[in-house]
């Protein structure tokens, strides 16, 4: 197996690990960002063909990489960006109300 796919898997699992293990809200959002990046990287990797050119056909090319995953990757980037914006707004709101970013303390304060 090639190294890039291994990197994708490690990044995916690292992000998942961060989301379920970390106590800091901002770190959780960082984890979300990393998982998302890994999935986008996976999309770009499956579009790539060795020796292919970018899918901009200003003249005839022999081998062109797959355009569909790249379009899906664009969609995924935009959706991910707006999700992270909403998450961070909620993080700020939670900090203003509870005065902490630690998940355990928030749970404690809530009783």
């Amino acid at each position, binding site marked *: 197996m090639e190294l890039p796919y291994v990197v994708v898997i490690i990044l*995916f699992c690292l992000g*998942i690990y961060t*989301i379920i293990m970390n106590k800091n*809200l901002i770190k*959780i959002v960082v984890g*979300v960002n990393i*998982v*998302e990046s890994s*999935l986008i990287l*996976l*999309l770009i990797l*499956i579009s790539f063909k060795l020796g292919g050119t970018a899918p901009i056909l200003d003249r005839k090319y022999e081998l062109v990489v797959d355009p*569909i*995953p790249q379009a*899906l990757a664009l*969609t*995924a980037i935009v*959706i991910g960006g*707006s*999700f992270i914006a*909403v*998450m961070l707004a*909620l*993080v700020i*709101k*939670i900090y203003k*109300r*509870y005065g902490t970013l630690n998940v355990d303390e*928030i749970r404690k304060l*809530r009783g």
Partner: protein
Amino acid sequence: MESAVWIILLPLLTAFFLGIFKLYSDKLFYSLVIVSMVIYLYLLILVINDSYPPKVYSIGDWGLLGINLMVDSFSAMFLLIIAILFITVIIFSLNYIKVNKHKFIILTYVMIAGIAGMVLTADLFNLYVFLEVSSMSSYALTAIKKTDKSIESSFKYLIMSTFGSFFILLATILTYYLTGTLNMAEISLEFKSVPFMIKSTIMFFFIFGYGIKIGLVPLHAWMPDSYEASPIPYNVLSSGLVMKSAIYALIRLLYVIFGVEFLTESGILNIGVFWGVLTFIIAHTLAYQQSNLNRLLGYSSIAQIGYITIGLFLGNEKGLIGGSFHILNHGIMKGTLFLVLGIFYYSLKADEIEDIQGLGYKFPVLSFTFVVAALAIVGLPPFNGFVSKWLIIEAAIEAGFFYAAFFILVGTFLSLTYYLKVIIKLYTKTEKKTLIEKPDLSLKLPTFFLGSLCILFGIVPSLPLSLINNIPKFLLNNSEYIRILLGG
């Protein structure tokens, strides 16, 4: 089939126009809400009537190169739920919502568009996009009260649901990698040559991802919190449409892409039935301990999802009919309960069990509606919940799952205990309470409408069943669905 695409476009267009009108004129805003609602109802009826045999609408006229929408009986039943719940909720919330009313209505329209998109699309990535549209508006509606609890539960919901989305996206990417296409029919044909192990892995990712959105038991943690914190009209839509659209998408994927033979072979049907039993037993037990009525109804929703899961995972005709009918019925029954609760909250700020003591004498008709819906959800004749539960039990016996049939009866008794607790409290005499605000007709009318549907569908179940009976034709035998989608 031009009207199929309008089912998605009209709410979107309405939401965008409302976003502009809210800046300038209140009068224009509300008239647009009403007008578009009426047109939407007409469109939905048009499409539902025309749903058999299934129709395909190709966006951009690209055929198999682009995105296709498909209306079959399963999606038509969902459109029926949208028609019933959406109208009642919009009328109800015009008077009920006090804070951020404009935003509430706009986001509700966006959410309906997302759900309609999920229901109609026959493209894997398009399904993911519309799933995110409906989820994003769900998070917003959960946080709309801006209290501590609602912000926190919205964050919890957002994180858990995004976690699920990752697995759905991963499975979608892997599917594209294996098959080179995103059209469900073509995927299904290509999947025949994919090895068993890889197919079951992709299926596991789909089930895990959608399981979080549905709220099956170990993955349900976000749900009661979000019910407690969000406005009640949203709870109606959440229990009736948001959760259900996730289970719709899962069932559509499993039966169409993987096919029922693979499901039997891989044993996922047994796991699904077992998971459903586990879900409703635990959820009923947890519901009994709640003192907040919203949380109680939330756990009850999870339990009902358990029944639906059993019905849909039995893999026979009767199970699919019963499960689908229960989706419709649960939307109506839970809607009634939440709307009555909403009126109590509106007039007395009552949302704990203690608070509603003696209200049975103050609001006799409303309380009667509550009792009807509660008995229906427990599953007593002659209400609609009984019919669908009975169908599920029959199907379970037919498929040889005797333990599931037995535990459904046990679950009925468990749910009877806590609903009786609430009903008894409702009719216990207490000293007079002062009303904060008198509920007017626009709040009561939708409630009575939903309550009467509970009785109507219980006495004349053939009315919706004539639509639902066609569902198994295209799910159990996916070749028919594939043939139509491929344009044969």
